[in-house]
């Protein structure tokens, strides 16, 4: 069970209020989609669960642990109950795909024999058997992402935390991946997945948490009622920070870039047109 109690998170370095007063409870065995626009605080939400960041206020309960009292020494053991797919993959550059995945098993002291059986199986599951001996920098973006997924799955963890695990793969494969996660969830594993692909959320009818500007604006077991989209997203985040005149002097450029509002409106029109096609 994961519980957020009045959690707020402010990043010290530049005072960004990433999350404000979040109260959420995720029961064991749930499958939760977390959606929200760019910079809304989704990754922060996950980082708080995995204790990579500590809340500025409030506390996070994970099973018997509380973020307020968790000792540094205990963090590695705490994380071993989780399988995490990082948004930036976090593969070890000096290790092959096989070793990257095996590393997660080695960390918990698994036997070499077990590793030799399990890792190929998992790699095959994400379609990377052929790339086992490749290094991360020899992989395509989607392949790297799948290695990160494989590493998260390999220990058969109690909770799977996936930060946009399908951002770099094609829609078919996205569906396969979420299908895989659903299967794992059906066997009792909690799955928390951040995604931008609303198609996925619609296909797999699960609980959806919508985060907007650091606040949970919607939390519903039925995605048809979830408010994915905010009406004027850009103006939320853009505050015309610079005092200087942002117009540029070259005339042709003015032509090209017009002004901001026009672009937004135009593209939204097109989106509406395209979406209903």
């Amino acid at each position, binding site marked *: 069970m994961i519980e957020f109690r009045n959690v707020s998170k402010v990043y010290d370095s530049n005072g960004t209020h990433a999350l404000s007063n979040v109260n959420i409870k995720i029961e064991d065995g749930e499958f939760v989609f977390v959606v929200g626009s760019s910079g809304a605080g989704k990754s922060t939400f996950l980082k708080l669960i*995995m*204790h990579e*960041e500590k809340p500025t206020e409030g506390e996070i309960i994970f099973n018997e642990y509380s973020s307020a009292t968790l000792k540094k020494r205990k*963090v*590695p053991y705490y994380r071993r109950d989780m399988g995490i797919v990082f948004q930036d993959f976090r593969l*070890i*550059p000096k290790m092959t795909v096989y070793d990257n995945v095996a590393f997660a098993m080695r*960390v918990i002291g698994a036997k*070499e024999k077990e590793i030799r059986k399990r890792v190929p199986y998992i790699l095959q599951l994400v379609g990377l058997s052929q790339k086992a001996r490749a290094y991360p920098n020899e992989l395509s973006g989607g392949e790297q992402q799948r290695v990160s997924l494989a590493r998260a799955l390999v220990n058969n963890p109690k909770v799977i935390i996936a930060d946009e695990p399908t951002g770099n793969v094609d829609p078919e494969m996205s569906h396969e991946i979420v299908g895989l996660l659903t299967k794992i969830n059906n066997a009792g594993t909690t799955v928390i997945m951040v995604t931008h692909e609303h198609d996925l959320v619609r296909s797999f009818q699960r609980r959806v948490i919508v985060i907007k500007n650091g606040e949970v604006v919607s939390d519903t077991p039925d995605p048809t009622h979830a408010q994915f989209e905010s009406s004027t997203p850009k103006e939320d985040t853009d505050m015309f920070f610079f005092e200087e005149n942002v117009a540029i002097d070259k005339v042709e450029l003015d032509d090209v870039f017009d002004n901001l509002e026009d672009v937004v409106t135009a593209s939204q029109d097109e989106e509406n047109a395209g979406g209903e096609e």
Partner: protein
Amino acid sequence: MTASSLRYLTKEGFRNVWTNRMMSLASICVLMCCLVLIGSAAMMFVNIDSLLSRIEEENVVMVYVTDETTGDALTQMENEIRAIDNIKEVEFVSKEDAWAEQLETMEEAQAKFFKEVSSDIPLPNAYKVTIENLDYFDDTVSSLKSLDNIDTIRENKDLAEKLVTIRQGISIIAIVIVAVLFAISLFIISNTIRLTVYSRRLEISIMKSVGATNGFVRFPFIIEGIILGVISGAVSLGIVWGVYEFAIKQFSSLLLSLNLKAIPFADYALPMLGIFVAIGVVCGVGGSLVTMSKYLNKEGSEISNV
């Protein structure tokens, strides 16, 4: 930690030496340079010290015996002198020998003059006493003075003291220089290791975020440190040895003309190897552990700033 973990981590340590070979090489080279410097300095001072101690040996006290002492009395006296502490050597110099030697050193004209003037020998019999340790020079001389049948004692206290001062001074300089070299080496090595660990902080941070304990992350670094330390210790010893033998050969004519013999390196090889390897391992292991703790203590997302 399970046995299979240990096996894996050890293998990983070896593998890392190769994977990060650029940094391994840099560390080994830097360590080696420092060890070679320290070793060479040490050998230089060992030689200077032995040279000075040989000069010291030649510092002697002349004990002049009264003219009346002859035969048994002389023998008894020699035994008495030998019985005194801190005496290294006693040599009897008959007055005939002494006079002949003295005439030898004089100008021809002067010598002729003396020989013409008198056939008497103006010198007493003497004992040439070599003192073991110049630190107790005064004590020994006063012991000598308390003997019977002594005419005078000619001691060159000044020279003796100067030699002691020089030797002490050089010892201090030697210790200071080796210590400074050592400190500088430690500093340079720690910097090098800091840089190598720094360039691996991404790796460390990823390992932590996958649930590795600090011990698990550290272990391969320890193995690496040991490997690098042993390699650089052993190679440095070889280099110092080679340089030393080369230097001896180069300066052989100088050494010969000064009537000196260089100390054989083999006497020092084993302890030096031990010290070198110990320094190497301590630096390699200690350095990386200390530096690493900085990155180990962070939880997570500080990675990026690569």
